[in-house]
């Protein structure tokens, strides 16, 4: 009995999680006139893609989607490379002032984006970079969080491995690429998941720095769509649906890994 009750609760909860997505899909194919019908129409007559057509007329939505995708991939790759290299230096290359420098890295981790938004905007304006791809990408070229996470991972790699490679005459670059990186692959993957999710969802910074539709990312494009079509929820939901689909496909394949990464972050 208790088992069935448990199952019922979990199932009901899952429906609550899925329903908003399903309703967004239904709304997106509902014609204008039927939007506010009561009772809500789950199988609207004359269902069609007119909202999607209007969405694509209002905004270069494919380009916006592509922007989010390549900015997400680029910032993730950049952060992986820059963070892993710094992490290697902090874990394996002693130099005077290393502890202090690492403390500076950690300190930047605690400063929230909100503090940096205004001066970053002014900095970009000074260099005439407002409304450019570079400006969107700039704050996520390096990641102190990544340095911290990967340093922990590299510190756990037994030193015998690099010492053996050193004896073979390998330099630090070789050791980094051929010995250390392959051994910390799980940590790299975890960090990649976080990096991509952060970039894909980022809203405040693009909102501040981007004006033209052709440089927008998805969150910004959707928000501006909402500004244009305040009451035409079918167009807004069409944009939401299109923007969820790519990440959903990715999620279906990487689901186990994504969840494991997040679970790990809590266990430390």
């Amino acid at each position: 009995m208790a088992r069935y009750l448990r199952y019922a609760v979990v199932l009901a909860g899952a429906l609550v999680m899925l329903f908003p997505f399903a309703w967004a899909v239904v709304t997106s194919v509902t014609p204008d006139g039927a939007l506010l019908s009561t009772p809500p129409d789950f199988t609207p007559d004359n269902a069609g893609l007119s909202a999607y057509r209007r969405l694509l007329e209002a905004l270069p939505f494919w380009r916006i989607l592509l922007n989010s995708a390549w900015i997400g991939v680029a910032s993730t790759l950049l952060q992986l490379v820059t963070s892993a290299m710094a992490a290697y230096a902090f874990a394996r290359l002693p130099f005077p002032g290393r502890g202090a420098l690492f403390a500076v890295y950690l300190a930047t981790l605690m400063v929230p984006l909100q503090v940096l938004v205004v001066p970053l905007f002014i900095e970009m304006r000074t260099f005439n970079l407002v409304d450019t791809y570079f400006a969107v990408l700039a704050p996520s070229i390096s990641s102190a969080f990544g340095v911290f996470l990967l340093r922990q991972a590299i510190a756990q790699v037994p030193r015998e491995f690099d010492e053996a490679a050193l004896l073979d005459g390998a330099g630090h670059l070789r050791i980094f690429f051929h010995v250390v990186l392959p051994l910390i692959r799980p940590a790299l993957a975890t960090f990649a998941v976080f990096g991509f999710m952060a970039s894909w969802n980022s809203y405040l910074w693009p909102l501040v720095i981007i004006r033209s539709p052709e440089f927008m990312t998805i969150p910004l494009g959707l928000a501006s769509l909402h500004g244009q079509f305040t009451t035409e929820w079918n167009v807004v939901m069409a944009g939401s649906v299109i923007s969820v689909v790519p990440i959903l496909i990715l999620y279906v394949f990487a689901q186990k890994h994504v969840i494991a990464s997040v679970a790990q972050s809590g266990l430390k």
Partner: protein
Amino acid sequence: MTMTAAPPEAPATHARHAPRRRLRYAGTVALFLLPSAIPLTLFTLVPMAASLWTSLHEWNLITPMEWAGLGNYTELLGDEGTRSAFLHTLVFIAGYLPLVYSGGLGLALLLNRAMAGRNLFRAIYFLPVITSWVVVALMWKWLLNPAGGMVNWALGLLGVQGPGWWTDPTWAMPSIILASAWKDLGFVMIILLAGLQAIPKEYHDAASVDGATGLKRFRYVTFPLLSPSTFFVVVISLINGFQVFDQVHVMTRGGPGGATQVVVEQVYDLTFRYGRAGTASALSWLLFAVVLLVTQLQVRAQRRWVHYG
């Protein structure tokens, strides 16, 4: 963690080559550090310093800055807008945190036992976590639409007249809280589930032998052993709670009538609506100080209630 080991490259032989060797080593260190140090300096450290500097000035982003000393800070501390922005942020946290924690804990406990389709359920609950905030805010704004919205229709079926949700000053914050808890439920669940699964089975077995059942076992065994995960969730949620912005900006822009004007929304408005960059910078540092203080207090308090196995 081995911080202080001799550089593997520096055996004391070949003294003649030592300077060149040292130079080369310095070059290697620079090669590894500069790719992150340069962007970190340009896009974090310099803006940090600039933000502190700006916070000591009056500045409308156009005409030259005017020195104001601590004027912005003292003005903010006595300002009604600041007080209500912090108050709204605290109201958000007070609604969001208990909701998301109890919901996440309940789900984690339910899913901690073998169950058909458990992985599928886990994936479904996690779906909103990977969905962008703007999408979630828009979906919920539509669900909570006072006219023709799904939620009010469902309430109507139960004979309840639904409120105006995000159009009503009283119900706007609950709307934001609801959407936020829905989005983050899966995150909290995953963290707590990992914590539950890390509890060694022997503890439960021992508790059963001692005759502890159900609630008692939860109260004296599960919950204390889960406290490190709880601590993590509370710290992260509080930090995120104080910095709440995306969902507010999309759902209400701080309205109606300023009813959901949270601190970061206030920073945004001060800068980009009122052109008061100095005051905005000061407010963002004030927020940072509060977050730092609260986090510090929790780290201090954890000794009393967090048990590390």
